[in-house]
């Protein structure tokens, strides 16, 4: 059951992004920026948690979930550490994903070369 829910939630979030791309000519970079910002706002309002409860990985895998993690991380850190948490919470909560992206990104760019397109 959780696979069906994840499929539907993740699919829906991507389908909305596709409509935005095709209808507004937003570039992929702008879509990603929009989604991460929107995710953070929804996370701050506490709305996104409900989507995760329903969709599981379907809500955490899209970049909205990354924005939500940033916001949730900040809120938790503020509760624990006060004002300093405003600056430490977001990146602490997302450190795993970002570090992995930087490290694997660099390693794979060393190993592989781009291929010309047919």
């Amino acid at each position, binding site marked *: 059951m959780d696979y069906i829910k994840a499929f539907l939630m993740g699919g829906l979030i991507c389908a909305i992004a596709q409509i935005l*791309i095709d209808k507004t*000519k937003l570039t*992929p970079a702008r879509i990603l920026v929009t989604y991460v910002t929107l995710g953070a706002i929804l996370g701050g309002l506490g709305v996104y948690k409900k989507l995760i409860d329903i969709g599981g990985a379907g809500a955490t895998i899209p970049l909205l979930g990354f924005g939500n993690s940033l916001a949730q991380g900040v809120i938790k850190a503020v509760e624990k550490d006060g004002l300093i948490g405003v600056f430490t919470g977001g990146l602490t909560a997302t450190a795993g994903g970002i570090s992995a992206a930087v490290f694997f990104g660099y390693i794979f760019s060393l190993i592989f070369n*781009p*291929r*010309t*397109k*047919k």
Partner: protein
Amino acid sequence: MAEKKLGTQTVKFKNPPSIIAGGTIVGPKEGEGPLRDYFDMILVDDTYGEKSWEKAESKMFQDAVNLVLKKANLKISDIDYLLGGDLLNQIISANFAARQLNVPHFGLYGACSTMTEGLTLGAMLIDGGYADYIIAATSSHFSTAERQFRYPLEQGIQRPFTSQWTVTGAGATILASTGEGPYITHATTGKVVDLGMKDANNMGAAMAPAAADTIITHFKDTGFTIEDYDLIMTGDMGRVGRDILLELLYKEGYDIESKYKDCGIEIFDESQDVHSGGSGAACSAVVLNGWLLSQIQNGVYKKVLFMATGALLSPTSSQQGESIPGIAHAITISTTL
């Protein structure tokens, strides 16, 4: 007193130079296209044995020049000027090829209109008595153009239907003061025209107003009619640009459809997933020097209006919200004087 000038933007050559040879190199994808039999050399691997695609493009440029010299039985020392350009910043393909070629070199940038820009200037140099032999050449490469103007190759993005595919290749033409044709008899130099198109994925729409402007001006300046030509061919309008161009011309009273072809549409098959068609400086260069010259030599066409079209796109100006200007230069190629 400019005695060779006709009307506002056209020159009529007094001693029209002859096109004595054309040389072409294309990449693997172009080599699978419908015009494959007309190219001198088809690369199996588009890195051409080089470490980067930029180096590969420059080598194609250089070898297209060497190839055309061989076909015309000339040495580089016989050439008075090389007129060349390409799409990359600081026209590195042309300039770095010229570094090896050891020939007086004018570097040109006219985006994809560079082929006819070079031919126009070359014909003027010869008719003016400044040269006996000139080479006009240009190149483009899918992989160098993508990274400079658009996205990294491995980025997972969708190409819209209006987008075009940059031709990998290089083409070179030798013009001579003496010869038996085909001749370049007229040249109409285009103005930069911009009707506010901003979509970098729709170059056809950006270029169509410039293309229409040059064609109409050509007819007005020369007094030629559509019936005078066997073929009117543009460089890389693509399917989208062609439809717009035909409508713009039709509205002004020029129905050229029955005589019209576009290099960008001819070079690839629709099954090759190139959406609107081919583009790039090499698009018009390889179709002209490959397919079209052989058609003219075989008598299929006797008088052709050939016009390379350029979208003067820059990632910097685009990001600053500027629209994309277009330019088009037309030349009359005729087997008789």
